[in-house]
Protein backbone atom coordinates (compact mmCIF):
# COMPACT_ATOMS: atom_id res chain seq x y z
CA UNK A 1 0.00 0.00 0.00
CA UNK A 2 2.69 2.48 1.09
CA UNK A 3 4.94 1.12 -1.63
CA UNK A 4 2.27 1.62 -4.27
CA UNK A 5 1.74 5.18 -3.11
CA UNK A 6 5.46 5.83 -3.28
CA UNK A 7 5.67 4.51 -6.81
CA UNK A 8 2.71 6.64 -7.79
CA UNK A 9 4.32 9.78 -6.35
CA UNK A 10 7.62 8.94 -8.02
CA UNK A 11 5.81 8.71 -11.34
CA UNK A 12 4.15 12.05 -10.66
CA UNK A 13 7.61 13.52 -10.04
CA UNK A 14 8.78 12.11 -13.36
CA UNK A 15 5.82 13.76 -15.04
CA UNK A 16 6.75 17.03 -13.31
CA UNK A 17 10.35 16.97 -14.55
CA UNK A 18 9.22 16.16 -18.08
CA UNK A 19 6.61 18.90 -17.91
CA UNK A 20 9.01 21.54 -16.70
CA UNK A 21 11.59 20.56 -19.31
CA UNK A 22 9.02 20.80 -22.09
CA UNK A 23 7.64 24.03 -20.71
CA UNK A 24 11.05 25.74 -20.66
CA UNK A 25 11.86 24.43 -24.13
CA UNK A 26 8.53 25.70 -25.42
CA UNK A 27 9.13 29.13 -23.90
CA UNK A 28 12.53 29.37 -25.63
CA UNK A 29 10.98 28.50 -28.99
CA UNK A 30 8.04 30.78 -28.46
CA UNK A 31 10.30 33.70 -27.64
CA UNK A 32 12.91 33.06 -30.34
CA UNK A 33 10.57 32.17 -33.19
CA UNK A 34 7.21 33.78 -32.47
CA UNK A 35 8.44 36.73 -30.42
CA UNK A 36 5.93 35.87 -27.73
CA UNK A 37 6.56 35.15 -24.04
CA UNK A 38 4.61 32.27 -22.52
CA UNK A 39 2.74 33.40 -19.41
CA UNK A 40 4.17 32.69 -15.95
CA UNK A 41 6.71 30.07 -17.03
CA UNK A 42 8.88 30.82 -14.01
CA UNK A 43 6.07 30.38 -11.50
CA UNK A 44 4.87 27.12 -13.05
CA UNK A 45 8.39 25.70 -13.25
CA UNK A 46 8.95 26.55 -9.58
CA UNK A 47 5.79 24.76 -8.55
CA UNK A 48 6.74 21.76 -10.67
CA UNK A 49 10.18 21.76 -9.04
CA UNK A 50 8.55 21.14 -5.67
CA UNK A 51 6.81 18.09 -7.11
CA UNK A 52 10.01 16.89 -8.79
CA UNK A 53 12.10 17.12 -5.64
CA UNK A 54 9.77 16.28 -2.78
CA UNK A 55 7.52 13.57 -4.16
CA UNK A 56 10.34 11.02 -4.70
CA UNK A 57 11.70 11.50 -1.16
CA UNK A 58 9.84 8.53 0.31
CA UNK A 59 10.98 6.24 -2.49
CA UNK A 60 14.55 7.52 -2.06
CA UNK A 61 14.29 6.79 1.65
CA UNK A 62 13.10 3.25 0.97
CA UNK A 63 16.13 2.58 -1.21
CA UNK A 64 18.25 3.99 1.66
CA UNK A 65 19.86 6.44 -0.71
CA UNK A 66 20.43 9.24 1.80
CA UNK A 67 24.15 9.80 1.77
CA UNK A 68 25.94 9.17 5.07
CA UNK A 69 29.54 9.04 6.25
CA UNK A 70 30.14 5.36 6.88
CA UNK A 71 33.80 4.68 7.36
CA UNK A 72 33.85 5.19 11.14
CA UNK A 73 30.69 3.19 11.74
CA UNK A 74 31.95 0.42 9.49
CA UNK A 75 34.56 -0.50 12.09
CA UNK A 76 31.87 -1.37 14.62
CA UNK A 77 30.32 -4.83 15.01
CA UNK A 78 27.28 -5.52 12.79
CA UNK A 79 24.81 -5.23 15.65
CA UNK A 80 26.03 -1.76 16.59
CA UNK A 81 25.94 -0.73 12.95
CA UNK A 82 22.37 -1.89 12.72
CA UNK A 83 21.40 0.19 15.74
CA UNK A 84 23.17 3.21 14.24
CA UNK A 85 21.11 2.82 11.08
CA UNK A 86 17.97 2.86 13.23
CA UNK A 87 19.30 5.89 15.09
CA UNK A 88 19.87 7.69 11.78
CA UNK A 89 16.26 7.09 10.77
CA UNK A 90 15.05 8.36 14.14
CA UNK A 91 17.07 11.58 13.69
CA UNK A 92 15.39 11.80 10.28
CA UNK A 93 11.95 11.44 11.86
CA UNK A 94 12.86 14.26 14.17
CA UNK A 95 14.36 16.46 11.44
CA UNK A 96 11.25 16.20 9.29
CA UNK A 97 8.76 17.11 12.00
CA UNK A 98 9.26 20.89 11.86
CA UNK A 99 8.91 20.74 8.08
CA UNK A 100 5.61 18.89 8.33
CA UNK A 101 4.29 21.17 11.04
CA UNK A 102 5.23 24.40 9.26
CA UNK A 103 4.36 22.96 5.86
CA UNK A 104 0.85 22.21 7.08
CA UNK A 105 0.52 25.68 8.56
CA UNK A 106 1.78 27.32 5.37
CA UNK A 107 -0.57 25.29 3.20
CA UNK A 108 -3.57 26.05 5.40
CA UNK A 109 -2.68 29.73 5.50
CA UNK A 110 -2.30 30.08 1.74
CA UNK A 111 -5.36 27.99 1.03
CA UNK A 112 -7.64 30.05 3.26
CA UNK A 113 -6.14 33.49 2.57
CA UNK A 114 -6.02 32.95 -1.20
CA UNK A 115 -2.34 33.88 -1.52
CA UNK A 116 -1.19 33.95 -5.13
CA UNK A 117 1.91 34.67 -7.22
CA UNK A 118 2.23 38.00 -8.94
CA UNK A 119 2.03 37.35 -12.67
CA UNK A 120 -0.12 37.02 -15.75
CA UNK A 121 -2.24 34.16 -14.44
CA UNK A 122 -2.20 35.02 -10.72
CA UNK A 123 -1.62 31.37 -9.89
CA UNK A 124 -2.43 30.32 -6.32
CA UNK A 125 0.39 29.58 -3.86
CA UNK A 126 -1.23 26.61 -2.13
CA UNK A 127 -0.57 23.76 -4.62
CA UNK A 128 3.22 23.84 -4.15
CA UNK A 129 2.78 23.90 -0.38
CA UNK A 130 0.36 20.99 -0.51
CA UNK A 131 2.76 18.94 -2.65
CA UNK A 132 5.55 19.73 -0.19
CA UNK A 133 3.41 18.63 2.73
CA UNK A 134 2.43 15.37 1.03
CA UNK A 135 5.98 14.50 -0.02
CA UNK A 136 7.55 15.19 3.36
CA UNK A 137 4.75 13.48 5.28
CA UNK A 138 5.04 10.33 3.22
CA UNK A 139 8.80 10.35 3.68
CA UNK A 140 8.23 10.60 7.44
CA UNK A 141 5.84 7.67 7.33
CA UNK A 142 8.34 5.62 5.35
CA UNK A 143 11.06 6.37 7.91
CA UNK A 144 8.74 5.29 10.69
CA UNK A 145 8.02 2.00 8.95
CA UNK A 146 11.75 1.49 8.40
CA UNK A 147 12.47 2.11 12.07
CA UNK A 148 9.88 -0.47 13.13
CA UNK A 149 11.03 -3.04 10.57
CA UNK A 150 14.70 -2.51 11.36
CA UNK A 151 14.18 -2.90 15.09
CA UNK A 152 12.26 -6.11 14.46
CA UNK A 153 15.07 -7.34 12.25
CA UNK A 154 17.67 -6.57 14.92
CA UNK A 155 15.64 -8.50 17.47
CA UNK A 156 15.52 -11.42 15.07
CA UNK A 157 19.28 -11.20 14.77
CA UNK A 158 19.30 -9.97 11.18
CA UNK A 159 21.62 -6.99 10.68
CA UNK A 160 21.91 -7.14 6.91
CA UNK A 161 19.79 -4.02 6.28
CA UNK A 162 22.58 -1.88 7.72
CA UNK A 163 24.84 -2.89 4.83
CA UNK A 164 22.35 -1.68 2.26
CA UNK A 165 24.12 1.24 0.69
CA UNK A 166 22.61 3.67 -1.67
CA UNK A 167 21.33 1.64 -4.58
CA UNK A 168 23.51 1.79 -7.65
CA UNK A 169 21.04 2.72 -10.31
CA UNK A 170 22.31 0.86 -13.31
Amino acid sequence: MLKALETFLLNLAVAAVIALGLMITASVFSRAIFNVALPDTIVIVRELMVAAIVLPLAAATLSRSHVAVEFLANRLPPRAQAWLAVFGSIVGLFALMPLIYAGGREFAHNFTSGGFFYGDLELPKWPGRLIFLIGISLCWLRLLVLVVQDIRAIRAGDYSFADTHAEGLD
Partner: protein
Amino acid sequence: QTTLIHGEAGPNRGARAAALQWFADTVGETSGGDLKVDVQWGGALFKANAAVQSIGDGVADLGTVIAVYYPQEMQSYGIADLPLDNPDAWVGMRATDELMRSSPVIAEDLAKKNLVYIGTFTTSAVHIGCTGDAIRSVEDIKDRKIRGTGAYGKVFGELGGNMVNMSIYKAYQGLDTGLLECSQGYSYAVTALKQQEVMDNYTLLNWGQVGGLGILMNKDVFDSLSEDQQQVLLDAGRGMADEFGRLITTANDAAIETMKEKGIEVFTLPEEERAKLVAAGTKHIDAWVEQMNASGMDGAALLEEYRGLIAKYTEERDSKGYPWTR
Protein backbone atom coordinates in the same frame (compact mmCIF):
# COMPACT_ATOMS: atom_id res chain seq x y z
CA GLN B 1 19.71 46.47 26.16
CA THR B 2 17.37 44.82 23.65
CA THR B 3 18.83 43.53 20.39
CA LEU B 4 16.43 43.34 17.48
CA ILE B 5 17.29 41.16 14.49
CA HIS B 6 16.50 42.62 11.08
CA GLY B 7 16.32 40.29 8.07
CA GLU B 8 17.31 41.90 4.77
CA ALA B 9 17.45 40.00 1.49
CA GLY B 10 19.79 42.45 -0.22
CA PRO B 11 23.52 43.09 0.20
CA ASN B 12 25.04 45.63 2.58
CA ARG B 13 25.95 47.86 -0.35
CA GLY B 14 24.17 50.63 -2.18
CA ALA B 15 21.66 53.30 -1.25
CA ARG B 16 19.07 50.98 0.30
CA ALA B 17 21.69 49.39 2.53
CA ALA B 18 22.92 52.83 3.56
CA ALA B 19 19.39 53.87 4.49
CA LEU B 20 18.79 50.67 6.43
CA GLN B 21 22.09 51.14 8.24
CA TRP B 22 21.02 54.73 8.98
CA PHE B 23 17.78 53.34 10.45
CA ALA B 24 19.72 50.89 12.62
CA ASP B 25 22.16 53.57 13.77
CA THR B 26 19.39 56.08 14.45
CA VAL B 27 17.48 53.58 16.56
CA GLY B 28 20.66 52.91 18.54
CA GLU B 29 21.39 56.61 19.06
CA THR B 30 17.94 57.95 19.83
CA SER B 31 17.25 55.11 22.28
CA GLY B 32 20.52 55.95 24.00
CA GLY B 33 21.83 52.44 23.33
CA ASP B 34 18.72 50.85 24.84
CA LEU B 35 17.75 49.31 21.47
CA LYS B 36 20.14 47.77 19.02
CA VAL B 37 19.23 46.68 15.48
CA ASP B 38 21.35 43.84 14.16
CA VAL B 39 20.96 43.46 10.38
CA GLN B 40 21.35 40.05 8.73
CA TRP B 41 22.20 40.86 5.12
CA GLY B 42 21.92 38.84 1.95
CA GLY B 43 18.90 36.76 2.88
CA ALA B 44 20.89 34.70 5.39
CA LEU B 45 17.72 34.19 7.44
CA PHE B 46 15.06 34.31 4.76
CA LYS B 47 14.65 35.25 1.12
CA ALA B 48 12.54 38.17 -0.01
CA ASN B 49 9.68 35.86 -0.94
CA ALA B 50 9.46 34.48 2.61
CA ALA B 51 9.74 37.80 4.44
CA VAL B 52 6.12 38.25 5.49
CA GLN B 53 5.67 34.87 7.22
CA SER B 54 9.19 34.99 8.61
CA ILE B 55 8.66 38.34 10.31
CA GLY B 56 5.16 37.44 11.45
CA ASP B 57 6.45 34.15 12.89
CA GLY B 58 9.36 35.86 14.63
CA VAL B 59 12.28 34.40 12.64
CA ALA B 60 13.48 37.99 12.68
CA ASP B 61 12.05 40.83 14.75
CA LEU B 62 12.02 43.17 11.82
CA GLY B 63 12.61 42.73 8.14
CA THR B 64 12.52 44.25 4.72
CA VAL B 65 9.36 43.34 2.83
CA ILE B 66 8.89 43.65 -0.91
CA ALA B 67 5.17 43.88 -1.57
CA VAL B 68 5.27 42.50 -5.11
CA TYR B 69 6.10 39.03 -3.74
CA TYR B 70 2.86 39.18 -1.76
CA PRO B 71 0.14 40.40 -4.12
CA GLN B 72 -2.44 39.01 -1.71
CA GLU B 73 -1.04 39.50 1.79
CA MET B 74 0.56 42.90 1.04
CA GLN B 75 -2.23 44.13 -1.21
CA SER B 76 -2.55 47.45 0.54
CA TYR B 77 1.19 48.13 0.42
CA GLY B 78 1.02 47.28 -3.28
CA ILE B 79 -0.59 50.68 -3.84
CA ALA B 80 2.95 52.08 -4.02
CA ASP B 81 3.79 49.73 -6.92
CA LEU B 82 0.90 50.86 -9.11
CA PRO B 83 1.84 52.48 -12.42
CA LEU B 84 0.47 55.83 -11.29
CA ASP B 85 1.91 59.12 -12.40
CA ASN B 86 4.37 59.09 -9.50
CA PRO B 87 7.98 59.57 -10.58
CA ASP B 88 9.57 61.39 -7.63
CA ALA B 89 11.26 59.12 -5.09
CA TRP B 90 10.90 61.42 -2.09
CA VAL B 91 7.29 62.39 -2.88
CA GLY B 92 6.38 58.75 -3.43
CA MET B 93 7.97 57.62 -0.18
CA ARG B 94 6.40 60.40 1.88
CA ALA B 95 2.96 59.63 0.44
CA THR B 96 3.36 55.87 0.93
CA ASP B 97 4.72 56.30 4.43
CA GLU B 98 1.91 58.57 5.54
CA LEU B 99 -0.75 56.30 4.08
CA MET B 100 0.71 53.17 5.68
CA ARG B 101 1.25 54.91 9.00
CA SER B 102 -2.09 56.65 9.37
CA SER B 103 -4.65 54.35 7.74
CA PRO B 104 -6.45 52.32 10.43
CA VAL B 105 -7.70 49.90 7.74
CA ILE B 106 -4.15 49.06 6.74
CA ALA B 107 -2.90 48.83 10.32
CA GLU B 108 -5.68 46.39 11.14
CA ASP B 109 -4.93 44.33 8.04
CA LEU B 110 -1.25 44.13 9.00
CA ALA B 111 -2.10 43.29 12.61
CA LYS B 112 -3.97 40.21 11.38
CA LYS B 113 -0.62 39.02 10.02
CA ASN B 114 1.10 39.89 13.31
CA LEU B 115 2.87 42.81 11.63
CA VAL B 116 3.46 46.49 12.35
CA TYR B 117 4.51 49.02 9.75
CA ILE B 118 7.78 50.86 10.49
CA GLY B 119 9.08 52.67 7.41
CA THR B 120 9.42 52.78 3.64
CA PHE B 121 12.03 52.65 0.87
CA THR B 122 11.41 52.79 -2.83
CA THR B 123 13.26 51.68 -5.94
CA SER B 124 12.70 55.24 -7.26
CA ALA B 125 11.37 55.94 -10.74
CA VAL B 126 11.19 53.14 -13.28
CA HIS B 127 13.28 53.70 -16.42
CA ILE B 128 14.53 51.48 -19.20
CA GLY B 129 17.98 50.82 -20.63
CA CYS B 130 18.57 49.14 -23.99
CA THR B 131 21.15 47.90 -26.42
CA GLY B 132 20.69 48.92 -30.06
CA ASP B 133 17.83 51.32 -30.70
CA ALA B 134 16.60 53.41 -27.81
CA ILE B 135 12.99 53.51 -26.62
CA ARG B 136 11.90 56.93 -27.81
CA SER B 137 8.20 56.22 -28.18
CA VAL B 138 5.66 53.64 -27.08
CA GLU B 139 5.87 52.23 -30.61
CA ASP B 140 9.54 51.30 -30.00
CA ILE B 141 8.54 48.80 -27.31
CA LYS B 142 6.96 46.51 -29.88
CA ASP B 143 8.85 43.23 -30.49
CA ARG B 144 11.81 44.21 -28.32
CA LYS B 145 13.13 41.56 -25.92
CA ILE B 146 12.46 43.23 -22.59
CA ARG B 147 12.98 42.30 -18.96
CA GLY B 148 10.26 43.99 -16.92
CA THR B 149 8.78 43.69 -13.45
CA GLY B 150 5.44 44.27 -11.79
CA ALA B 151 2.64 46.09 -13.52
CA TYR B 152 5.24 47.98 -15.56
CA GLY B 153 6.40 44.72 -17.09
CA LYS B 154 2.82 43.74 -17.82
CA VAL B 155 2.25 47.05 -19.64
CA PHE B 156 5.41 46.53 -21.73
CA GLY B 157 4.05 43.11 -22.69
CA GLU B 158 0.65 44.54 -23.57
CA LEU B 159 2.32 47.16 -25.76
CA GLY B 160 3.93 44.39 -27.81
CA GLY B 161 7.19 43.77 -25.94
CA ASN B 162 8.66 40.25 -26.09
CA MET B 163 9.02 39.74 -22.36
CA VAL B 164 11.99 37.75 -21.04
CA ASN B 165 11.74 36.39 -17.51
CA MET B 166 14.94 37.15 -15.68
CA SER B 167 16.04 38.68 -12.42
CA ILE B 168 17.65 42.12 -12.40
CA TYR B 169 20.92 40.49 -11.32
CA LYS B 170 21.08 38.41 -14.49
CA ALA B 171 20.15 41.33 -16.75
CA TYR B 172 23.82 42.15 -17.20
CA GLN B 173 24.54 38.80 -18.84
CA GLY B 174 21.28 38.97 -20.77
CA LEU B 175 22.14 42.34 -22.28
CA ASP B 176 25.69 41.18 -22.92
CA THR B 177 24.73 38.06 -24.91
CA GLY B 178 21.78 39.66 -26.67
CA LEU B 179 19.19 37.56 -24.90
CA LEU B 180 17.80 40.87 -23.69
CA GLU B 181 17.52 44.08 -25.66
CA CYS B 182 16.06 46.18 -22.87
CA SER B 183 15.91 46.00 -19.12
CA GLN B 184 13.53 47.90 -16.90
CA GLY B 185 15.32 49.34 -13.91
CA TYR B 186 16.15 52.37 -11.87
CA SER B 187 19.19 54.55 -12.26
CA TYR B 188 21.24 53.70 -9.20
CA ALA B 189 20.70 49.98 -9.74
CA VAL B 190 22.02 50.28 -13.29
CA THR B 191 25.43 51.45 -12.10
CA ALA B 192 25.40 49.31 -8.96
CA LEU B 193 25.07 46.27 -11.22
CA LYS B 194 27.48 47.79 -13.78
CA GLN B 195 24.88 47.51 -16.52
CA GLN B 196 26.29 50.66 -18.11
CA GLU B 197 29.05 48.38 -19.42
CA VAL B 198 26.57 46.52 -21.61
CA MET B 199 23.89 49.14 -22.40
CA ASP B 200 23.88 51.56 -25.31
CA ASN B 201 21.20 53.95 -24.17
CA TYR B 202 18.89 54.76 -21.30
CA THR B 203 15.42 56.26 -21.53
CA LEU B 204 13.98 58.17 -18.59
CA LEU B 205 10.33 57.20 -18.54
CA ASN B 206 9.48 59.30 -15.48
CA TRP B 207 6.50 57.03 -15.00
CA GLY B 208 6.00 55.50 -11.58
CA GLN B 209 8.02 53.55 -9.06
CA VAL B 210 8.14 50.22 -7.29
CA GLY B 211 7.57 51.68 -3.86
CA GLY B 212 5.97 48.86 -1.90
CA LEU B 213 9.23 48.16 -0.19
CA GLY B 214 9.89 48.82 3.46
CA ILE B 215 10.41 47.69 7.02
CA LEU B 216 7.77 45.71 8.87
CA MET B 217 8.01 44.43 12.41
CA ASN B 218 6.72 41.45 14.33
CA LYS B 219 3.73 42.73 16.30
CA ASP B 220 4.31 40.56 19.40
CA VAL B 221 7.83 41.89 19.70
CA PHE B 222 6.68 45.46 19.01
CA ASP B 223 3.97 45.19 21.67
CA SER B 224 6.45 43.81 24.19
CA LEU B 225 8.52 46.99 23.96
CA SER B 226 7.94 50.05 26.12
CA GLU B 227 6.09 52.99 24.61
CA ASP B 228 9.31 54.98 24.40
CA GLN B 229 11.05 52.19 22.56
CA GLN B 230 8.13 51.86 20.15
CA GLN B 231 8.28 55.58 19.48
CA VAL B 232 12.02 55.39 18.75
CA LEU B 233 11.39 52.75 16.09
CA LEU B 234 8.44 54.58 14.54
CA ASP B 235 10.34 57.88 14.43
CA ALA B 236 13.40 56.31 12.86
CA GLY B 237 11.11 54.59 10.35
CA ARG B 238 9.47 57.88 9.43
CA GLY B 239 12.86 59.56 9.10
CA MET B 240 13.92 56.97 6.55
CA ALA B 241 11.92 58.60 3.75
CA ASP B 242 13.93 61.82 4.05
CA GLU B 243 17.25 60.06 4.49
CA PHE B 244 16.67 57.58 1.69
CA GLY B 245 15.23 60.35 -0.48
CA ARG B 246 18.49 62.26 -0.10
CA LEU B 247 20.64 59.19 -0.71
CA ILE B 248 18.76 57.92 -3.69
CA THR B 249 18.40 61.28 -5.40
CA THR B 250 22.16 61.80 -5.13
CA ALA B 251 22.85 58.20 -6.19
CA ASN B 252 20.54 58.45 -9.19
CA ASP B 253 22.10 61.72 -10.34
CA ALA B 254 25.55 60.22 -9.99
CA ALA B 255 24.42 57.12 -11.87
CA ILE B 256 23.17 59.18 -14.80
CA GLU B 257 26.52 61.01 -14.84
CA THR B 258 28.41 57.70 -14.86
CA MET B 259 26.26 56.46 -17.71
CA LYS B 260 26.91 59.59 -19.76
CA GLU B 261 30.64 59.34 -19.10
CA LYS B 262 30.53 55.79 -20.36
CA GLY B 263 29.05 57.13 -23.61
CA ILE B 264 25.50 55.99 -23.00
CA GLU B 265 22.88 58.14 -24.63
CA VAL B 266 20.31 59.28 -22.09
CA PHE B 267 16.88 60.21 -23.45
CA THR B 268 13.75 61.49 -21.81
CA LEU B 269 10.51 60.00 -23.10
CA PRO B 270 8.45 62.80 -24.66
CA GLU B 271 5.45 63.97 -22.62
CA GLU B 272 2.75 62.63 -24.97
CA GLU B 273 4.42 59.21 -25.15
CA ARG B 274 4.70 59.14 -21.38
CA ALA B 275 0.98 59.91 -21.15
CA LYS B 276 0.31 56.83 -23.28
CA LEU B 277 2.23 54.67 -20.81
CA VAL B 278 0.35 56.11 -17.85
CA ALA B 279 -2.93 55.52 -19.67
CA ALA B 280 -1.95 51.92 -20.47
CA GLY B 281 -1.42 51.35 -16.76
CA THR B 282 -5.01 52.29 -15.85
CA LYS B 283 -6.42 48.78 -16.13
CA HIS B 284 -3.88 47.51 -13.61
CA ILE B 285 -4.88 50.24 -11.20
CA ASP B 286 -8.53 49.30 -11.64
CA ALA B 287 -7.67 45.65 -11.03
CA TRP B 288 -5.95 46.61 -7.77
CA VAL B 289 -9.03 48.54 -6.60
CA GLU B 290 -11.21 45.53 -7.30
CA GLN B 291 -8.89 43.20 -5.41
CA MET B 292 -8.91 45.52 -2.44
CA ASN B 293 -12.68 45.64 -2.51
CA ALA B 294 -12.79 41.85 -2.61
CA SER B 295 -10.72 41.74 0.60
CA GLY B 296 -13.12 44.12 2.30
CA MET B 297 -10.98 47.25 2.10
CA ASP B 298 -12.21 50.30 0.23
CA GLY B 299 -9.70 50.40 -2.64
CA ALA B 300 -11.05 53.50 -4.32
CA ALA B 301 -10.96 55.51 -1.09
CA LEU B 302 -7.38 54.49 -0.34
CA LEU B 303 -6.35 55.30 -3.89
CA GLU B 304 -7.92 58.72 -3.67
CA GLU B 305 -6.19 59.33 -0.36
CA TYR B 306 -2.89 58.20 -1.87
CA ARG B 307 -3.25 60.45 -4.90
CA GLY B 308 -4.06 63.31 -2.57
CA LEU B 309 -0.90 62.61 -0.59
CA ILE B 310 1.20 62.51 -3.77
CA ALA B 311 -0.25 65.90 -4.72
CA LYS B 312 0.38 67.25 -1.23
CA TYR B 313 4.04 66.27 -1.14
CA THR B 314 4.61 67.31 -4.75
CA GLU B 315 3.34 70.72 -3.72
CA GLU B 316 5.61 70.74 -0.66
CA ARG B 317 8.61 69.83 -2.77
CA ASP B 318 7.80 72.54 -5.31
CA SER B 319 7.30 75.26 -2.73
CA LYS B 320 10.00 74.36 -0.18
CA GLY B 321 12.36 72.03 -2.04
CA TYR B 322 13.54 68.69 -0.68
CA PRO B 323 14.11 68.60 3.10
CA TRP B 324 17.86 68.13 2.66
CA THR B 325 18.14 71.24 0.50
CA ARG B 326 16.16 73.45 2.84
